[in-house]
C-alpha cells in the first residue's frame, strides 16, 4: 500500500537532488534553470499529494498557478540567458562573478 509518507519522501528526495544540482553544477545556467524546474516539480507533487489525501481540490488549483508562474519564469530566464550569451559570449557560471565584493 502506498501511503502519503511514500510520496512525501519521494518528493523530499527529488527536492534534495535538485538542490544539489544547483550547487554542484558549474557549467551553464541552463542546467540551473532545469534544476529549478525540478524543484518546482517536487513541490507541486507535494501539493497534489496533500490535495489528494485531504480531499481538497484547492491544492491542485495552486499547482495550476505554480505551473503558470513557473512557465513565465522559465521564459524570462531563458530570455535573460540569451541576452547574457549575446553580451558575454558564454553562459558558464564559472565566469559570472560580478557579485564579488
Amino acid at each position, binding site marked *: 500500500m502506498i501511503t502519503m509518507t511514500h510520496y512525501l519522501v519521494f518528493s523530499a528526495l527529488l*527536492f534534495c537532488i535538485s*538542490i544539489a544540482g544547483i550547487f554542484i553544477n558549474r557549467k551553464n545556467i541552463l542546467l540551473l534553470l532545469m534544476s529549478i524546474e525540478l524543484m518546482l516539480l517536487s513541490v507541486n507533487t507535494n501539493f497534489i499529494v496533500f490535495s489528494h489525501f485531504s480531499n481538497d481540490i484547492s491544492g491542485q488549483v495552486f499547482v495550476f498557478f505554480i505551473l503558470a508562474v513557473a512557465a513565465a519564469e522559465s521564459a524570462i530566464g531563458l530570455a535573460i540567458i540569451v541576452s547574457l550569451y549575446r553580451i558575454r559570449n558564454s553562459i558558464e557560471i564559472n565566469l559570472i562573478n560580478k557579485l564579488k565584493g
Partner: protein
Amino acid sequence: MDIITILFYLVTSVIIFSSISLVIVNNTVHAALLLVLIFFNSAILWLMLKAEFLSIVLVLVYVGAVLVLFLFVIMLLDIPVKKNSSPKLYLLFSVTTSLIMFAELYMIILFHNFSDEANIVVSSELNNTYEIGLMLFTEYVFSFEITAFILLVAIIAAIAINMSKKQRSLRQDPGKQILENKKSRLKIIKGDEL
C-alpha cells in the same frame, strides 16, 4: 503487492535516477531530454494521485512548450560540452549537505506521522477537470486573472529583454575602433556649459 505499488516504485525510481543523471550529465541536450523523461513519469505519478487535469497539463504545457523552448535555446546558443570542474572536496561537501538535508526532511516526515488515507473520501461524481475549473472561476478568479496578467508580463519582458537596439555587447569591434579619430573622441566644451 498490487499493481499500484509496483507502478509507484517503478515511476519514482525512474524519476530519481534520471534526476541524478540530469544533475551530473555534461551534455545540456541530454539533460533536457532527461527532464522530459522526468516530467512524463511525474505525469504518471500525478495520475495515480487522481490529478488527471494537471498531469495532462504537465505533459502538454511543460513538455510541449517549456521544454521545447529549452531545447530551442540550447540549440540556438550551441554551447560546447564541457566537463564539470567542481573540486572534489566541494562536491563532497555539497553532496553531504544535500544528504543531510534529505535526512532531516525524512525525519520531519516520519516524526509527523501523517495519517494515511484518513480523509480519503470516494471522489464525487464530478470529474477532476470540472472541479478545478469550478474553483478557478469562482473562488480563485481574481488570482486567475492575475496569473494571466503575469504571463502577459512575462511575454512582454522576454521580448523586451532581447529586443533593445542598443549594442550592449562588451565584445570589441576592431572595425569601429579603426574608424575613430581625434575629433570623435575629444569634445571641447566651455566651463559655463557645465
